[in-house]
């Protein structure tokens, strides 16, 4: 009713209210953004330090620190191949002593876990033997499949020192499949997936060893400039914008959606 009587006035009152509210909302949005930006700026360095520390801790657990003398966290290459489980970009960190390669720590994925992908990092010595394996992220059943974590069981340490004799080495399987690795009581699928994933990664490495090691360093610039982040930044190695960040060793949680896409 009132619309008919004084449509213009009503409208203008409404517009005034709307514009006023918009302004207030915008002010709050700006204030909040500034606050978050400030905190982000203040914590940036600390976060990077933490990530580096975490990465180094993981790397040290699979490659003994005395074996190399380079800045391993800043010496890496990016790679992507179906053998590595997913089409994500994976990172490999290279350990050198006096300039020559000692070992390489590759992040990779075992796609056939009981509950989705199992992300792991494995260090391969120059002679093709395994220096160490750690599972970074998984969604296996707690109490059964999660024994692939070092925290729960020492199972992953049994890979240390093992070698692939041929591309189709049939010892690389769980005992149930006549291989040399134990399965867990009540969980065969998880260890089977991890064993297969490690075997594929190892095969990929032996096949492409030369090309991997000669690739340009993708992490190097972090040493000098603070603006580029070391591990998660999209460096030149990534061309496809659709692909995720290089398998982030420092942030082992990837989104579920991503996992679902790959299944």
């Amino acid at each position, binding site marked *: 009713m009132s619309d008919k009587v004084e449509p213009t006035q009503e409208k203008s009152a409404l517009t005034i*209210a709307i514009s006023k509210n918009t302004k207030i*909302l915008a002010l709050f949005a700006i204030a909040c953004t500034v606050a978050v930006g400030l905190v*982000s700026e203040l914590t940036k360095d600390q976060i990077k330090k933490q990530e580096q520390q975490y990465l180094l801790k993981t790397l040290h657990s699979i490659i003994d620190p005395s074996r190399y003398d380079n800045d391993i966290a800043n010496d890496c290459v990016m790679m992507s191949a179906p053998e590595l489980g997913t089409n994500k970009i994976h990172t490999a960190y290279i350990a050198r002593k006096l300039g020559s390669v000692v070992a390489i720590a590759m992040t990779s994925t075992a796609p056939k876990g009981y509950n989705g992908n199992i992300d792991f990092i494995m260090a391969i010595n120059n002679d093709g033997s395994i220096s160490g394996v750690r599972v970074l992220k998984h969604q296996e059943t707690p109490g*059964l499949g999660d024994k692939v974590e070092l925290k729960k069981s020492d199972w992953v340490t049994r890979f240390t020192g093992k070698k692939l004799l041929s591309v189709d080495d049939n010892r690389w399987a769980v005992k149930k499949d006549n291989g040399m690795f134990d399965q867990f009581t009540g969980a065969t699928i998880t260890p089977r997936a991890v064993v297969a994933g490690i075997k594929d990664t190892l095969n990929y490495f032996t096949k492409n060893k030369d090309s991997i090691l000669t690739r340009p360093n993708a992490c190097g610039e972090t040493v000098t400039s603070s603006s580029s982040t070391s591990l998660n930044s999209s460096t030149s190695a990534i061309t496809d914008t659709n692909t995720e960040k290089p398998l982030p060793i420092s942030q082992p949680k990837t989104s579920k959606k991503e996992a679902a896409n790959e299944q």
Partner: protein
Amino acid sequence: MSNKIAPQQSTDTEIASNADTQATADKLKQEAEVKAALKAEYKELAIQGLWKNNPGLVQLLGLCPLLAVTSTITNALGLGLATLLVLICSNVTVSAIRHWVPKEIRIPIFVLIIAAFVTCVQLLMNAYAYGIYQSLGIFLPLIVTNCAIIGRAEAYASKNPVKQAAFDGLMMGLGFAIILILLGIIREVLGQGTLFDGANLLFGEWASILRIEVMELDSQFLLAILPPGAFIAMGILIAVKNAIDNYIKNKKVADTEQVIERVRVNFDS
């Protein structure tokens, strides 16, 4: 002694001082009343937050993080502290700006404020408690969606002064954190037979000594670790709370007489 001597010397001053004392007494009385009212309010807030209106047990808000991360005490503590911090900060801010926020757009503004605080807490945890940041994973940013926080902002903080709002946030947050920790204790002891496993992720390396082996388990009790265990434990906690409430009510009824008995019937029906 001096009071007794004074009136004998001069009555004038006595009257004046009497009037003075009267005024100050009134003032004091008023202040005391205000203080008592405040105290009562704070007490009521504490009771509401910790027991009567506990966000976890009674309001059943924020169930998703509550059930998902309570597999160990450390995780529960981490999320509890983060929620507590966000709740206090958001309550204080919402209360401080309550006169400038038009009614129509208050919800988006509250959400903005809460989201900003959650992001800040997330960044801070990433920087200073990296381990716990990783084990909380997606549930840290999900604090934004915890209805307990926007619920308090809307129901209390937007209508009350800053101090009370902060206290309300503290109590509600504590109530929520206590439930998280209780669930964490139950599930960790039953599931892994330990307490404070991984406390070093939250507090630094020294905290590794906090780890207690409560009982030796050959294999983990899966149900307690998995989400169904969380639901069952939560149900038991709520049942215990209701049982205690009923017990208190019945006791009150027994203390007073017949008249109350009718009330009791009313309550039951």
